[in-house]
């Protein structure tokens, strides 16, 4: 018996891993580039965190003035309240972005003036105010529970920026490195005839493919660790119960995007061509799968179309188990979709595959 770290599988895995780690461009696009987005979005998020929605209360707003203590506390955590008597001035401030919302009370109606410039902030504002009104209404009927303002529920419905973007950007990062890795390896090895050379070594195709897949999966898990680590350390990312299901989900997702990379490698003739083709597949998909912005506001047809995209399923599955608090079973359907997609695309790639570029 050979020891664990010897033998063809480990030799190949090590060779492939070094090849990746020493490729600065590949590492940049797999890890640093997506992390830049995370930091960017995470940074934006910290400006608009709960308690930092600037509200101008114009005149007497009994709804807010008469909040009971517990609701008041929750309210203060969401809004930074200043008072004013000049409605026009308050609205002008909102327009300029100096304040996020101006509220006034017209009889029984709470009127909120805010812009849609920042959808996340607008969502929190609208949600919180709605909850406030609902709570007041409920209380007015004399039914229990008296007056409760649950800001938390608002957050859950429209996820905090970091909660939303960590899984999405991670999905994009993994999709990129898996697809690029597979495409570049296939083309590179074919160009240099290394693929041929390996055929003449006493190792099975299974071992070669297994080593390549293992390295990509390991890289994906490291990407995950880095994303989750930075997200929770610096940007207050909180994972929900079944987050660990993101691991198998990510593994299947990696296989799926490797198959797309294989396809890109099979239909192109040069290494640059293969990487460009992989990029051509992954980048638009990331946009249409909600990696960079939520699809809620996208047109209906686009939302429907996005359902054929594997990255959409990877992202949704990860959102469900990592931040939406769904049970682990929520990841099963996305995994099934990704697996079927991977098998189909791999079969197509195998059909199109040529040993040589000529």
């Amino acid at each position, binding site marked *: 018996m050979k020891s664990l770290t010897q*033998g063809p599988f480990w030799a190949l895995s090590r*060779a492939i891993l070094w*090849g990746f780690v*020493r490729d600065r461009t590949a590492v940049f696009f797999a890890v640093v580039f997506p992390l830049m987005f995370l930091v960017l979005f995470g940074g934006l998020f910290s400006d608009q965190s709960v308690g930092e929605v600037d509200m101008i209360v114009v005149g007497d707003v009994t709804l807010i003035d008469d909040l009971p203590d517990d609701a008041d506390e929750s309210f203060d955590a969401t809004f930074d309240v200043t008072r004013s008597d000049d409605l026009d001035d308050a609205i002008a401030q909102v327009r300029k972005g100096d304040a996020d919302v101006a509220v006034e009370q017209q009889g029984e109606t709470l009127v909120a003036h805010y812009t849609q410039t920042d959808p996340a902030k607008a969502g929190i504002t609208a949600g919180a105010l709605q909850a406030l009104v609902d709570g007041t209404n409920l209380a007015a009927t004399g039914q229990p529970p008296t007056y409760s303002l649950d800001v938390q529920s608002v957050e859950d419905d429209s996820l905090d920026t970091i909660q939303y973007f960590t899984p999405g950007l991670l999905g994009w990062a993994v999709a990129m490195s898996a697809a690029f890795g597979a495409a570049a390896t296939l083309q590179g090895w074919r160009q240099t*005839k*290394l693929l*041929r050379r390996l055929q003449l070594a006493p190792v099975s195709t299974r071992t070669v493919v297994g080593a390549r897949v293992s390295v990509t999966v390991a890289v994906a898990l490291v990407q995950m660790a880095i994303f989750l680590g930075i997200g929770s350390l610096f940007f207050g990312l909180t994972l929900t119960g079944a987050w660990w299901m993101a691991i198998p989900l990510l593994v299947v997702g990696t296989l799926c995007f490797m198959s797309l990379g294989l396809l890109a490698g099979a239909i192109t003739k040069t290494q640059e061509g293969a990487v460009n083709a992989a990029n051509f597949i992954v980048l638009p998909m990331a946009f249409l799968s909600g990696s960079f912005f939520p699809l809620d506001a996208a047109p209906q047809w686009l939302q429907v179309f996005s359902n054929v995209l594997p990255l959409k399923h990877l992202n949704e599955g990860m959102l469900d188990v990592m931040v939406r608090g769904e049970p682990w079973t929520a990841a099963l359907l996305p995994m099934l979709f990704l697996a079927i997609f991977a098998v189909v695309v791999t079969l197509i790639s195998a059909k199109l595959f040529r040993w040589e570029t000529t």
Partner: protein
Amino acid sequence: MTAAIEVAGLTKDYGDLRAVDGVDLAVDEGDFVGILGPNGAGKTTLLEMIEGLREPTGGSAAVLGLPAWPRNPALLPRIGVQLQASSFFERLTAREQIHTFASLYGVAASHADEWLERVGLVEKADSRVEDLSGGQAQRLSIACALVHDPEVVFLDEPTSSLDPQARRNLWDLLSGINDSGRTVVLTTHYMDEAEALADRVAIMDHGRVLVHDTPAALIHRLDAPTRITLADGETITTREPAVEIARLSEANRLDGVRVQTGTLEDVFLDLTGREYRA
């Protein structure tokens, strides 16, 4: 002696192009065969079919008594192959490279290091393969092909980008391998290389093996006239060099005389009807 390589009627078509055309070739164990031929003659294609990389359109090839196609896993550890291009793992150092290949064949790392030494790459062991010169890369590629001490070695133009010094060193290395009883098949564009190394030479053109024999026999069969060049530049071409030299001796003109019999180059020229451009 058993045949190390046995090829019969081997043919390969690429669409309309017949790259290899009904080649018969038998190589005894321990033989050193040089395959000579101009660009596009079909040398690489022939070699790749014998190695089991390419499916022949027709005919058969057997190595060490085992059919080459389909690729036979039992055969793979027994053959060593250097493909025409330098096939390396990207961004590995020379040492990592040969260690990886050693592991694929279950060979110890220390043995791989010996090979680095043998091809004179110890100083470059920590350089990445991308940073090696053409000749250094070629030497590494050869070391990777030989690291598992194969019984039959295939080398496709192993000396094409080596400097004269490295070429001589490699000749010594290959002779040594051959002396230890291994069969070596190499393609080359260099006549002197084939003449110096090969027990037998096969000359290919247009997909056919035109002749396959010892260099001496080929030259002898050519029956080329001997050229005698005198010190003053005068050249005498004769079929009876002994008589001519005796005559020159009598005339006391033997100082500085050069006598040239036919060369492999003449054989090649005669067979292919073209000048050999290395």
